[in-house]
């Protein structure tokens, strides 16, 4: 799977680096001073690299926990995110990571304990329940068998009733969760799209059916579930497509286990959008009815409102309003 493993010299002998090297014995191991030497150079093509990404092991020095964008909100007032990884093993055509980073390589920050300290500090300083989002710059679970990050971090949240963590994922790598007792303050949030859209746009990701199966297993084990319908994608028959899709999803949902659902239409910062279009000019998603107004590219305002209103109405026929959150354009 991983052919080239880049490792910062300072952490070459860190136990997690050693374990990951052992996991990929055939990989070429390349040392560097700082991961940015490999990850940041301008002369890189994200699309070509995505065919066979490498793994970069690095140490993070600061900014472990950041305030989340305003619309990253599932009911709390104090919202934060952290990124133990940059980039994702899936290849979703609407994802902002393609436009934000020059490299498709995965970066894993292996100093998990420093993340723990920063999270704990933030919880202690928070006057109200703090929500932490872990799947902002990566999929929270997709590389869990390699990273073990979630297995490491969840015990921290078991100590705090007033802190919540959201694991956002399209993955079926749920074994580490099923091995432990469900936590009321860990929301496993699945990003879901209708089958036809998932097949066309969410390359390398598990099918909708597989994601729903994983969700069902977690739900039965008592884990709070999140549903993330973001981004909603326009197609001529979107009303039929999304009606059928919501029915399909909620036929598998136990509303008592549902923590929250969120809804947002396709949107990207203009700079990221332009980078992505240069990489994938033939992509149908970018040939749709988009308004390229500053600073975000999104569907034309009237259409966007129609789509949101339609999906919201449909969802409210299937779930309670207080659990539904609308995401706006502040990535």
């Amino acid at each position: 799977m991983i052919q080239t493993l880049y490792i910062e010299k300072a952490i070459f002998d860190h136990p997690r680096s050693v374990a990951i090297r052992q996991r990929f014995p055939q990989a070429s191991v390349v040392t560097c001073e700082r991961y940015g030497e490999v990850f940041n150079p301008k002369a890189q093509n994200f699309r070509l690299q995505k065919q066979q990404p490498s793994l970069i092991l690095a140490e993070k020095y600061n900014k472990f926990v950041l305030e989340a964008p305003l619309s990253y909100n599932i009911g709390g007032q104090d919202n934060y995110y952290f990124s133990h990884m940059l980039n994702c093993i899936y290849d979703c055509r609407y994802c902002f990571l393609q436009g934000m980073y020059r490299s498709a390589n995965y970066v894993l920050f292996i100093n998990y304990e420093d993340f723990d300290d920063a999270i704990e500090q933030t919880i202690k300083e928070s006057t109200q329940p703090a929500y932490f989002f872990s799947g902002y710059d990566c999929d929270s679970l997709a590389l869990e068998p390699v990273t073990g990050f979630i297995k490491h971090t969840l015990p921290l949240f078991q100590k705090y009733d007033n802190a919540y963590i959201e694991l956002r994922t399209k993955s079926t790598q749920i074994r580490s969760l099923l091995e432990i007792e469900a936590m009321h303050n860990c929301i496993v949030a699945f990003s879901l799209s209708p089958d036809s859209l998932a097949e066309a746009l969410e390359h390398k990701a598990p099918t909708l059916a597989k994601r729903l199966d994983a969700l069902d297993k977690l739900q039965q084990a008592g884990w709070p579930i999140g549903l993330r319908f973001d981004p909603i994608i326009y197609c001529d028959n979107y009303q039929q497509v999304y009606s059928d899709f919501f029915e399909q999803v909620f036929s598998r949902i136990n509303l008592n286990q549902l923590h929250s659902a969120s809804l947002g239409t396709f949107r990207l910062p203009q700079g990221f959008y332009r980078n992505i279009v240069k990489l994938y000019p033939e992509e149908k998603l970018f040939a749709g009815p988009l308004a390229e107004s500053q600073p975000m590219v999104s569907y034309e305002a009237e259409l966007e409102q129609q789509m949101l209103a339609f999906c919201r109405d449909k969802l409210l026929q299937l779930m309670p309003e207080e659990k539904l959150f609308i995401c706006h354009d502040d990535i």
Partner: protein
Amino acid sequence: MLHIVTALPCEAKPIIRHYRLNGRQAENGFRIYENDQIGLIIAGIGKCAAAAACAYLQGAEPQSKHAWLNLGIAGHGDLNVGDAVMAHKVTDANTATSWYPAMPFKHPCPTVELVSVDQPQTDYDANIAYDMEASGFYDTASRFNSSELVQVVKLISDNHANPAEQVSAELTEQIIDAKLDKIDALIQKLLELEQQQSQQMSPEIKQFQQHWHFTVSQQHKLQRLLQRWQARSETTINPADFIDAKNSKAMLQALEKKIIALPMRFDDK
């Protein structure tokens, strides 16, 4: 198109023979050996010569984006004479600057760290290969294309037991000839990646430019509209579809209108 830079004639000859490259008439600077897919220059020894060869090749077609390969011999402490290796890290010994060629494909041969030095190396550090060109090549070629399309392949010519003084032109040709299968696998991969990159352009734009005059800004808009058309329609579009458009602005408006009217579905494949 792939551009290959070698230092010595004996490094180039096996490639010229295998790919049947023809030498252009003598030109100022360098002689280019080529066929319809490959252009090769014998640059001479050293980083400056390699950099100059890259600039010369790119200067011949400044608008184009090609794949690049530095092919030559190198010394190594541990590896056997004749082994083929690709560079996963290229370091300039003088400046300590490093480059990391991205290799998003199955490596046709093992990969090593390569250090470019000014004088032939007689003392080899373990696990490091030494050459005299790669850093000059990489620094320059990576200005012209992204790092996936700029690669370095070296054949081990000397090691502790076989010092550099014993390397001859005949030996160099022999070891390159013996590894042509590995070199060809890399060349084919680079040509494939270069093809994928060039397919991102829209092919019909020139036909439209023959019928209307487009400003630079309109050319960008036309290119994007043609890409959008291709994304949403299985049919091709050509200037005859806009026979009534009196000028470029009207043509672009008409094309945009046609695109908006196309179906937008994701379940039609």
